[in-house]
């Protein structure tokens, strides 16, 4: 076989594989949206679910998912970026550093159900935080931290060393150099890592079953004091998220329209993740341009 033919075949195979993957994704997305979009209405998005009657919504679940996302990101992002900076800029090569790196690698491929059980035993029971949004957020932090650490480390390592040298040679401290020269350049990578983490949080169910719980108390959406027990902002209340709700409705839903609700909720979940993605990217581009004055 001539080199030219081999090249043609290789190109063909690669294009075919890519096409197959794209087709599968588009098919899946289309199927979910096709089945679910019809069920989405303002009423569906805002009203509480019904147990046995028709016409329940997903209002509290959607709110819980978004709130949990914010809560988890508030804990995960600073910790992840901090540890990532340490691993990339401060840790000296050696046994301890490689041990930390190994642990991070292992943790990042941990099955989420195990994280959930760990959360149940340690966070919910031992620390007595109960089934609550905070427990859920902490479990998801365990689950997402390794990703954040790794991505931040990679992002910083991808910054040309000449940038760092140029700053240090001006008599600028290491910390200021990291903050004002290296991090802005690494920002797009750190941000895409955060988006990835956010997607995992939003779609996660297994780790939340045993930590954030499977029920949602009646929420009073006119009470925004986080200390009140039926306030939506109270982080100590149990909170069923959208992904958990889909699982529950699908497996043990009694309402006659359970299938439609699950389909509608799935579509909402996907659309929200998509919107979040686009929003974060736009924000990232804006921040990157602002810091680096590039167009």
């Amino acid at each position, binding site marked *: 076989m001539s080199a030219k033919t081999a090249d043609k075949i290789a190109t063909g195979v690669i294009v075919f594989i890519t096409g197959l993957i794209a087709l599968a994704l588009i098919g899946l997305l289309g199927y979910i949206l096709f089945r679910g979009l019809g069920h989405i209405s303002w009423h569906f998005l805002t009203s509480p679910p019904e147990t046995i009657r028709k016409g329940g919504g997903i209002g509290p679940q959607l709110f819980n998912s978004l709130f949990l996302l914010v809560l988890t990101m508030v804990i995960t992002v600073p910790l992840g970026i901090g540890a990532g900076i340490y691993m990339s800029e401060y840790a*000296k*090569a050696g046994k301890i550093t490689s041990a930390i790196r190994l642990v991070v690698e292992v943790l990042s491929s941990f099955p989420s159900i195990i994280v959930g059980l760990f959360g149940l035993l340690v966070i919910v029971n031992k620390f007595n935080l109960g089934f609550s949004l905070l427990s859920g957020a902490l479990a998801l932090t365990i689950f997402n931290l390794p990703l954040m650490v790794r991505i931040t480390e990679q992002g910083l390592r991808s910054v*040309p*060393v*000449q*940038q*760092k*040298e*140029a*700053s*240090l*040679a*001006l*008599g*600028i*401290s290491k910390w*200021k150099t990291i903050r*004002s*020269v290296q991090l*802005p*350049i690494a920002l797009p990578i750190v941000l895409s890592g955060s988006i990835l983490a956010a997607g995992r949080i939003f779609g996660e169910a297994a780790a939340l079953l045993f930590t954030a719980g499977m029920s949602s108390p009646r929420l009073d959406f006119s009470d925004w004091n986080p200390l009140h027990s039926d306030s939506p902002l109270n982080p100590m209340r149990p909170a069923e998220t959208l992904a958990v709700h889909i699982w529950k409705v699908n497996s043990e839903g009694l309402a006659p329209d359970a299938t439609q609700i699950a389909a509608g909720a799935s579509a909402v979940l996907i659309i929200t993740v998509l919107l979040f993605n686009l929003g974060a990217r736009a924000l990232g581009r804006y921040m990157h341009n602002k*810091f*680096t*004055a*590039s*167009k």
Partner: protein
Amino acid sequence: MGEIALSAKKLNVYYGEKHAVHDVSLDFAEKEVTALIGPSGCGKSTFLRSLNRMNDLIPSCKVTGEILIDDRNINGTDTDVVALRKKIGMVWQRPNPFHKSIYENIAFGPRYHGIKNKKQLDEIVEQSLRKAAIWEETKDRLHKSALALSGGQQQRLCIARTVAVKPDVILMDEPASALDPISTSKIEELISELKQDYSIVIVTHNMHQAARVSEKTAFFLNGHVVEYDKTETIFTNPTHQRTNDYITGRFG
């Protein structure tokens, strides 16, 4: 010859097992240009990077001996390296402007060193860009990205950035070798201007450049300084055979 701006005494540099610089002792005079020449891998860049402790960044690198500035050894663990580097600026082979605007590239250093007043900063930016002979080309686009400038302009911007923190000494590591001939001659003119205010140590591969811009020249070979003298003497009447062989192009 004027005052001594900076001197190295019995400086040795090791990369792990490799002994890259052997017992180098050199004095650099104030407001003069000193050129370091020699074949690739002779240790001249390594030596240069030791002078502002840039080699601290390389974990396997060890530097012994003394580097004296105002009679104080700055090669100790108790030296404030950050303050030292403010006094000894550096320009590299490849221009490395920050991924920021032209203005921010210059203002970054002075602002960190305590100048917050907008007017004062504006002045420093203008002065520095003028000193580096790039003001006319950039004054209308100060807030545009520095990365949009040409290579030669970027290099002059990097020199302006170094000048902006008012160092005593500027180290240049082959500052023109990645540039075209026109940009190179601009950089050389600039060096001749800058030596009125700064002491400059320049590593160069280009012997004509060394001859054109420097007062003194040190010839490095295999980590040793073979000869150090007035540039004129080195290029017309060197003492050592090896120096003569190198400058006449017999090796290197």
